[in-house]
Each structure stands twice: as structure tokens, then as C-alpha cells.
């Protein structure tokens, strides 16, 4: 199904991708500002099945510290050298673009390359995830993938590695070289491969979720976004993890008197009620401040704040093959003891 997007869809999409950011993935505001300048509207979004399967495609996104992007607006022209490098390496000009990450700011990043490239409704995560080796193409070990990363000052690093961990390590080094944040482009695949090795329909989901009015009763909001209401309460304290300071746990007194614990890394990873895990990644755990309806990022959880927690099911792609799920549970973040058996991955 082809859909045409106008400027009026931008805030809805931004809000939808914020939901799918699960507390990470960066603020969509930067991308919203960049797109308002570019004004690519009207934009046509294609289903992966609509285009010829042999269409060469690329996936784009920003990697590194999303916080840095709030200080320094990135140059949209930076994707051009990456695209050129990929073209030189593969010998093929890309004709379609999708996102490397279907949550947070990167949900909107491919819009920067449209309509020059055809925009495909597909991404490699279906939510926000921090690492390249967690992306669907690398999880499924699709051969011939190429990562092009800006190293800053006009430089481009082209990575052709067969091991996903190597891609992650090398991209990370290049991003550090570029100043902590920079554009990344994955090439070497076709639109046909997206149907099997990527998550499709994320943009449609973002549109649907972004339209939901969050001011209603939590249970109704949860039903409207296709998820469930996990619980609400007041944050008592936030303490960093002992073995990994990037992990943290927020202690909350639940509205029903229960003890809620919200465990976070770069995203929200899990929620415990009285010691029992009641939601965990890859479920998309979303925190709302009910007084402002703001969708909170991990660093927005602080003592005395009232928070309502929702859980949206993860794309079913993650549980369709047995090897996939281990890449996205809390243990994949290095946080032990929170993995649930039979995690909820139901959304197509």
C-alpha cells in the first residue's frame, strides 16, 4: 500500500517514533527541525512488496550520542559522500532508502534522502536498540552488507565485515573519530531482502500510535496504542547499576501500593512489580509523564516524578526464529536476571 505523507504527518510520526523509542533512540525534535527546513512533502512511502525485489537499497541513521545532536545540528548533506562510497564499492546506484532503527529520531532519518531515493516502510529494529549487531540484517547474518560511516572532516569509512560484532566495534570507532555522533549508511542489500530480514510496517505503526490522544485514562490509552498499561507511580529514587553504571533502576511506589522497579540501560529494559518481572525488552516499554503527556527518555526518570508505564508488544519478527530473541532481551544489554520466558512479540 502506497501512502503519501504531507507536512501535517510530521508531528504524528515524530510522536509515534517517540513511543517506539522505548526511552532511547534520541529525541525526534532534531529531525523534525531538519525536515521542516527541507520540506520534502509530499512524500510517497512504499511497501517493500510494491517495489521490484531487485531494487538496490540503503538504510540510514545517526549513530553515537543523540544528546550531542541537540547541541550541534548535523549536516544533512553528510549522507551524500556515504551514498557515493557505497555506490563505488557495490558498483550499483541505490534507488530505495529505509531506516536502520525504527524508533526514536532514526525513524525519521530516511526522510532526509527522499524523494531522491524511494522511501520504503522498513527498518532493522522495529523499536530503538543501541547496537549494530542487534539489527535484523546482522542478526540474520545477511551476506554482503556494507557499512559506510562518516569519520568527520569529509572522511568516509567503508566497513565490509562478516561478523556483526566487528561492524559494531568499527562503526563505533569511526563515530568517535567523527566527534561522537555521525551518519551511518548500510548498503549491499535489495528491497526483496527487506521482506525477510527487516521489520516492515514500522512507519504505519508509528502513524497509528502517534495519533493516539495520551490524555485519557491509562487503560484506554494502552488499548489505543495496542499495548497494555503496566502501572503508574511516583519515582522514589534512581540508582545506577553496581556492575554497569549505564544500567540504572528507578524505585517507584505504585498507585496500588506495590513496589515498582523500572530498569533502564540506553532504553527501558524491564519493569518489576513486587520482584516479579511484568514487562521486559524486546517489549517496547514507554514512560509518560501524565501531567504533561510527555514521552520520557531514560534520563527523564527522576525522583518525585509521576510516571505511567506502558508496554507495547515487540515486532513478531524477533520471535519468528529462535536465534533472534537473544539479541534484544535485557541480557543482551548485559543486564542479568530480567529475561522473561516467552517474551511478548506479537505485532506483525
Amino acid at each position, binding site marked *: 500500500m502506497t501512502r503519501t505523507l504531507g507536512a501535517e504527518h510530521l508531528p504524528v510520526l515524530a510522536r509515534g517514533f517517540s513511543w517506539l523509542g522505548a526511552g532511547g533512540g534520541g529525541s525526534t525534535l532534531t529531525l523534525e527541525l531538519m525536515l521542516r527546513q527541507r520540506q520534502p512533502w509530499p512524500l510517497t512511502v512504499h511497501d517493500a512488496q510494491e517495489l521490484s525485489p531487485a531494487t538496490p537499497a540503503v538504510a540510514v541513521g545517526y549513530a553515537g550520542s543523540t544528546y550531542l545532536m541537540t547541541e550541534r545540528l548535523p549536516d544533512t548533506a553528510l549522507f551524500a559522500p556515504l551514498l557515493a562510497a557505497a555506490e563505488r564499492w557495490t558498483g550499483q546506484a541505490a534507488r530505495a532508502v529505509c531506516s536502520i532503527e525504527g524508533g526514536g529520531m532514526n525513524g525519521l532519518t530516511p526522510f532526509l534522502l527522499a524523494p531522491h531515493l524511494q522511501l520504503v516502510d522498513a527498518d532493522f529494529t522495529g523499536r530503538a536498540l543501541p547496537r549494530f549487531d542487534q539489527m535484523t540484517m546482522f542478526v540474520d547474518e545477511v551476506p554482503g552488507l556494507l557499512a559506510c560511516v562518516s569519520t568527520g572532516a569529509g572522511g568516509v569509512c567503508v566497513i565490509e565485515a562478516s561478523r556483526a560484532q566487528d561492524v559494531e566495534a568499527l562503526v563505533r570507532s569511526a563515530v568517535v573519530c567523527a566527534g561522537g555522533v555521525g551518519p551511518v549508511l548500510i548498503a549491499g542489500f535489495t528491497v526483496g531482502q527487506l521482506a525477510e530480514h527487516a521489520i516492515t510496517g514500522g512507519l504505519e505503526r508509528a502513524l497509528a500510535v502517534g495519533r493516539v490522544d495520551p490524555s485519557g485514562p491509562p487503560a484506554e490509552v494502552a488499548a489505543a496504542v495496542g499495548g497494555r498499561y503496566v502501572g503508574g507511580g511516583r519515582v522514589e529514587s534512581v540508582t545506577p*547499576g553496581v556492575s554497569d553504571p549505564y544500567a540504572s*533502576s528507578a524505585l517507584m511506589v505504585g498507585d496500588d501500593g506495590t*513496589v515498582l*522497579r523500572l530498569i533502564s540501560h540506553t532504553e527501558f529494559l524491564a519493569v*518489576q512489580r*513486587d*520482584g*516479579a518481572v511484568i514487562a521486559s525488552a524486546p517489549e517496547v516499554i514507554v514512560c509518560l509523564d501524565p501531567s504533561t503527556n510527555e514521552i520520557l527518555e531514560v534520563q527523564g526518570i527522576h525522583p518525585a516524578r509521576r510516571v505511567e508505564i506502558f508496554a507495547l508488544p515487540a515486532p513478531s519478527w524477533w520471535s519468528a526464529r529462535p536465534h533472534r530473541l537473544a539479541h534484544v532481551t535485557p541480557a543482551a544489554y548485559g543486564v*542479568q*536476571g530480567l529475561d522473561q520466558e516467552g517474551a511478548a512479540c506479537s505485532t506483525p
Partner: protein
Amino acid sequence: MQHTLSLQALVAHPRNGGLRWIEPGDGTGPSAHPVVPLRDVVLVTSVDELPSCTGGESTQPGSPGSLVVFTQTPPREPWEADALLRRVKSRGHAALAFKEPVALGAGTLAVARRLGLLILGAGAPLELARAAWELQGNQDALTLGYVRKVAQSIEYHADHVQDLLRHLAASVGHGVALVDREGVLLEAGQHLSPDLHAALRSDAWTRATHAGGASGASVRVESPSREGLRLVFFDRGLAGTQLSALSVAAETAMPAVAARLLIDEVASVNNASIDSGLIRDFLEQPGGPDSDVRRRMHERGWRTSGVHLGFRILGLSRLTPLELLRSVSRETRTWDVDTHASTAGLGVIGWLTFSEPPSSQELERHTSALRELHRELRRSFNVSTGVGTPEAGAEGLASSLDAAGEAARVAAQRERGGHFLRIDALGLEQLLLSRTRNDTFLPTARSLLQPLIDAGGELLPTLGAYLDHESSTAATAQALGYHRNTVSTRIERIKDLLGLDLADPDTRLAVHLALRALQD
């Protein structure tokens, strides 16, 4: 069903690996927690070994769960600790003990409260498991453990019976007390409540009982010198198995305690006789103590420097001086001043030593304490008590003790002050009078003054007033309401009649005393 194993019994077990309450908090002590019966104690080294509580419907309220003893410290991440608590609870267990150090966050403790799971800490989890094993019907091991501890405590040197009780309390790990029918004579380790004392009152050989959360096991002490004594081992939260094991421990410890009581008795008699001999030697040396006496006094810790306030307690009828001394020492031990006492003749002699001269308020306070002591003693002994004046140095000590002795002798005949007399209140004159009012002096006085008696009644009062007023004719005349010429005429006549020189101080004193002795 009576469970021999309860959490309280484990907490009360002296070798429980340092078990302590963590949740609910132990600010109020384990007695604040209701008795938690335990089905079993499960020792696990990791979460994966955690079994389900045996017995199916174990999570239903009222049915006992198990104590899970974890040989590890709590997980480091709070969410891992929360999850562990949840797992332990969901498998039907009642309590969870971690290896120390146990530093759980507020959130994890709140989860424990929500789940109703008790959290404890133990320094040595294996020892805790062993304690549980002993309590779970391995009575002989438990008893033997206690008996061995009793034997170990006898091995250590004890200065007196209280010391021995302290050793026993420390090694057995429970409170120890020596009681009679009236109350607690000595206790160590813990405080024996009056409720438990009342419950333990018995003539039986051994007795084990509970009262008000505490329980104890007692045994009769077979002592030739003291009757009706019982030795008690007691604590809070003891189970039946522990009490019967402690009864055996008490039986084992009893002969040592009885022997010690006898040894103390002999030592105190011996001590008293040494003290008493030394005091006699000290008082009998008129020029102050010689170097030998000084050395012996120093050895016994008697200071002669400073200011001393002597007191003497005299038996007015037959009594045992040693018993009297024991009663005196029991009181004086609690005073905030250096006090010594010893038997002397048919009574007790003693003194208070102050490093600085005491203020009059201080002196008053100590005198009242002595008066109170006297009143207390009069309940059991027919005694009189005399108190001297505060005086400095070795000589001062001797004279203060002398004065106290005089006062006690005077007090013996004075019902009015309750047989208590303080030398300051007595007055020197009274003292002299008491010395003169006897069968040898009175006839001498009468014969000395006979000429004045024969010459008419008015001369004696005139002489009395004259001597009282320092031989001043004018003052005497004023006191008696006569003209001074009348007084001087009479004095001349008295001198003539007596044939004595009233200007001589010795003569004046003799006449004055004789006069008082006759007038009184």
C-alpha cells in the same frame, strides 16, 4: 502441632552463625516478632537449587514455610535481589537468610514487606544450618554442645561467683542467674524478668518453663552455706529442645557454682579477719601506724592520705559480725565514695575517704547515707552506730575512728536518736560526761563537792554558772540575776570551802566535770 523449630529458637541459639533480623527491622529485638514456626531449613548455594517448599499447599496462610539459607551474599543489583525474593516466596518459603554482609536497598526491603517474606542475615550460613539440624530433634548434639561450653567456662579463672556466672553466660550464649525465692541475687549476660523468676520458683530438682516471651531452665543449688538457691539459664525465644538441653547444662554447671559460693564464703571470712587484725594494729599504735602497719594497709588498698570520716557499728546483742559486715558492704559498695569496712569485736568499723575535705553539704549527704544504712541494719540486727568527725591523715583516721567508737557507745544507751549518734551533734561535753557517768567517778565528784552541798544549795549553781562563763564575775552575775558583788563574795566562799585553786586549768576542768556529773 508443636514445632520444635521456630525462627525465634534459631535466633536464640548461641551458635547460629550470627543470625540477625533484617526485615522486619530488629530495632525492637526479636521478641517483637510473632513466633514463626518453620517446617524446615533449606541450604542452597545458588538460586537454581531452590526447591519448592515440600507439602504442596504450603503457601496457604498459617501453615509453616521453610527458612531458605543462602550461602551467598545478596545479588548486587537491586532488581536481581527483588527477583530472588519473589522466587523464594513463590516457592512457598517463609524466610530467607543471606550470608553477611547483607546491605539491601529500601526497595528490596519494601518488596520483602509486600511479599511477607522474612529476611535475615547470617555470618556463617553453614553454622546456621547446623544449629537448625540440632534443633530439629538432634537433642544429644545440642545438649553436648551446651555441656562442652559449660566445661570450657569452668576452665577460665574466676575471681568470684559473679565472675563465674559471667563466664558461663558468655560461653553458653544465654543469660545466667542465681536466684532465691525472693528475687535475683546475681545475673550475667541478660536480665531475668520478675515474671520468669516467679514461674521458675520451685523446689524441684530441675524446672524448665516459659513466661512472657522468655524461657528458662533452672536447677536447685546444693550448697551447705546457702539454702533455697537456684541456678537459671534463660533467654528469649527458646524452644523446648533448647530448654531441656539447657537443664542438663545447668545441672553440669551447678556443682561448680556451689563450690564457688563456698570458696567465696571462706575467702570473705579470711579477708574479714585480716582486715580486722590490721585495723586493731592500726588503732592500737598511739603515735600513728609504724612502717609495717603502713605497708600492710597499703597492700590492702587503704589510703591514709585525704580526709576520713569514721563510723562504728556496735552489736547491742549477740550477732555474727561477718553477716553484719556483708550487709554493710552490700550498701557501701554502691556509694560514690571510697569506703572501707571491717569486722571489729562485736560489730563493724569503717570509714569513708575523701581526697579533698568534703563540703558541709557533702558531709551531710554521707552522714544521712550512714543514718539510712543504720536504719536498714536495724531491721535485721540490734546495733548502735556512731559517726566521727572528718579528719585528715593517718592520725586523723585514728581519731575519727576513736570518736566514732565513743559515739557508738553513747548511742547504745540513747533510744532517742534510734541508737544513731554523730559526734558533731553530740558535743564534746556530752562525750566527757559519758566517760564520767560511771560508778567510780560519781562518788569522787560527790566527795569533791560535798563541802558546797553542805554549805547550802545555792553555791553549786553559782559555781556552775561561773565556770560556764569563763570565770567572769560580771557575766555570771548577769546570767543569774545577782549583783556582781554577791557573785564575787560567793566565789571567794567557794574557794575557801573547797580549798582549791580555780585558776589552775586542770582543777577547773575536774571541778566542772564533777559539777556536771552531779547536776545531770
